[in-house]
């Protein structure tokens, strides 16, 4: 009952006209960038970040979160119509979505993905309502040792459980932690890694880093890529409606996808992309005729879309109840909360109930808005696909530069953005992932603080991390994740070394 009362309070916050407008703007921007290939949710959120400085905390979070889950909805549109994933998590949707669209069923595929996204999102929100407060209450007993261990697990999971080389992921986490060192040490007042630059005394700023790595680098990578004007066929409202069999074929995949997505979203460090891949693999395994997949199976779009939307919602659980972001996009949101003076953690829900429940209520409202934006207005989104990138990216660069500059009217921040943009571009080219770097940057300073405190309390005994059962659990899990991720590399190592010795 208390939950319902809280939720009602949340709706009272989120249904204020101003908040509704903010939520609408957020999901529309999200939908917009999700639809457009070449702009990800990450770039959109960092570009919108400076705007939210002028809003109050709740409004800022509602808007940024709206961009985030709005982009998940939009991402599937370009996947289905053009075989171009608008966001990484909708890459799987291409596999069956595009064949469906070539077979003249684009409308049905879009409709089913919208509905299954909605269902996935709703299930994720329900779980969040139940889990987040309970987890927060449990976490009130955590001491610094537990926090350090759980953050360690989060960083390791985020860097190794993704596509690509786990070594590169781990490297990027550590580089992020190292970037977090820059500035005056909180305990001793000692400036670290500032190279005597005054502007670096209070650290590398999140905005320059995020805009560089995710905005500028993405533009550098995409310029010249989309030179052909994109043409997509128009979609009529009539062609959207699925047949009775198609409805029936989508029910279970949607629910299975939601379950998989929710479970993966809750884990710190894993997000929508992995969830959608796992959901697709599961559908293929349980299908009576797996050969239909890749040729336009409706299950192949319903399940991954449900999964990534569920994961996006449940990823807020560890963030809001423990202060540990589920993925890089949420890490940016957490950064935005910290800029507004809120440290996400177990106390957040009880000390800022308006913000927490208002945010949850806005998720429902946002999901309903997206449903409305998607189904009747699908024709508009299809036309948005044809906006040429050559017009978009100078505008994006402009928003990046103004946003960074206006933060404290210092051109230095703009130069930093350029530097991080260049670095980010080479990271992309060499396949060093940027998301773990950002997580390391945000969690690093918190981890250092908790490490320091835990060791102070234990009198310098590192065993404290193993003696407290919950902390020990997280440490063991971290070791297991690392071992699993590096196993293929280690197993091949002797053969490689022998091989290269034989060559010489």
């Amino acid at each position, binding site marked *: 009952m208390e939950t319902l009362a809280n939720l009602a309070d949340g709706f009272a916050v989120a249904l204020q006209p101003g908040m509704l407008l903010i939520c609408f703007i957020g999901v529309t921007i999200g939908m917009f960038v999700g639809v457009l290939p070449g702009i990800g949710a990450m770039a959109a959120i960092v570009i919108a970040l400076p705007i939210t400085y002028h809003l109050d905390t709740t409004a800022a979070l509602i808007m940024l979160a709206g961009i985030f889950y709005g982009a998940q909805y939009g991402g599937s549109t370009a996947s289905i119509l053009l075989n171009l994933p608008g966001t990484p998590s909708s890459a799987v949707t291409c596999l069956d979505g595009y064949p469906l669209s070539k077979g003249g069923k684009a409308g049905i595929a879009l409709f089913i993905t919208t509905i299954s996204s909605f269902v996935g999102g709703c299930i994720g929100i329900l779980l969040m309502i139940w889990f987040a407060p309970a987890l927060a209450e449990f976490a009130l007993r955590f001491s610094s040792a537990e926090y350090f261990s759980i953050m360690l697990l989060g960083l390791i999971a985020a860097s190794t459980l993704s596509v690509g080389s786990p070594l590169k992921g781990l490297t990027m986490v550590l580089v992020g932690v190292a970037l977090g060192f820059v500035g005056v040490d909180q305990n001793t007042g000692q400036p670290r890694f500032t190279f005597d630059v005054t502007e670096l005394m209070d650290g590398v700023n999140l905005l320059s880093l995020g805009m560089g790595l995710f905005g*500028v680098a993405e533009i550098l990578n995409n310029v*010249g890529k989309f030179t052909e004007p994109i043409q997509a066929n128009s979609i009529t409202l009539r062609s959207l409606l699925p047949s009775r069999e198609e409805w029936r074929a989508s029910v279970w995949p949607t629910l299975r996808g939601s379950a998989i997505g929710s479970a993966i979203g809750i884990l710190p460090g894993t997000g929508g992309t992995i969830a959608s891949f796992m959901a697709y693999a599961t559908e293929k395994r349980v299908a009576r005729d797996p050969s239909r997949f890749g040729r336009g199976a409706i299950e192949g779009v319903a399940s991954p879309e449900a999964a990534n939307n569920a994961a996006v919602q449940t990823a807020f659980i560890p963030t809001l109840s423990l202060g540990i972001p589920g993925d890089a996009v949420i890490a940016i949101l957490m950064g935005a909360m910290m800029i507004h003076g809120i440290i996400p953690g177990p106390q957040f829900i009880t000390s800022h109930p308006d913000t927490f429940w208002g945010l949850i209520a806005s998720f429902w409202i946002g999901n309903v808005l997206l449903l409305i934006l998607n189904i009747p207005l699908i024709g508009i989104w299809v036309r948005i696909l044809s906006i040429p990138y050559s017009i978009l990216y100078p505008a994006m660069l402009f928003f990046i*530069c*103004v946003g960074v500059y*206006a933060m404290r009217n210092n*051109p230095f921040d703009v130069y930093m953005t350029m530097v991080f943009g260049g670095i980010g571009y080479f990271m992309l080219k060499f396949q060093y992932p940027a998301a773990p770097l950002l997580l390391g940057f945000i969690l690093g300073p918190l981890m250092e603080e908790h490490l320091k405190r835990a*060791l102070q309390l234990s009198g310098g005994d590192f065993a404290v991390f193993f003696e407290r059962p919950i902390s020990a659990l997280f440490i063991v899990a971290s070791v297991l994740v690392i071992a699993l991720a590096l196993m293929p590399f280690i197993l091949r190592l002797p053969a*490689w070394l022998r091989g290269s010795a034989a060559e010489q």
Partner: protein
Amino acid sequence: MAASRINLAEIAGAVAVGVIGLIIVWMGSDYSVGTPRRIGPGFLPVVVGCLLVALSIGLVIEALRTEPSPLDIKIRPFLLVMLSIPAFAILVERAGLVPATASLVILSALAERPVHLVRILVLAVLISAMGVAVFVYALGLPLSAVRW
């Protein structure tokens, strides 16, 4: 299976990681490391730096075993986009938002081929006008449209 060609670019990247690690260890050991009971500001940097050096060794081994893939770095768009950003930063203080925006848009838009000069100029005018309307008038940021 041995790689037929050595992946120089990847190895250079891996070595760069190691060099960064060494620099962090070297600078970090200047800030006191402290004792376990009271770890100093240099403790974690030294640990992180050492881990980076270890990882770079792993990355070199990994790079030795992968076929080089074409890097496909386009120099012209890279330079133009990278230049457009400091151009904005310099001009926004000295000449105001409009010249800064116009030069940002024109420089960066030149990166795309083929160059449509008229379209670029129209885009520059539109984005500058929007910038002044939104940031100077609507949001009231302390920026001037044109500074003399």
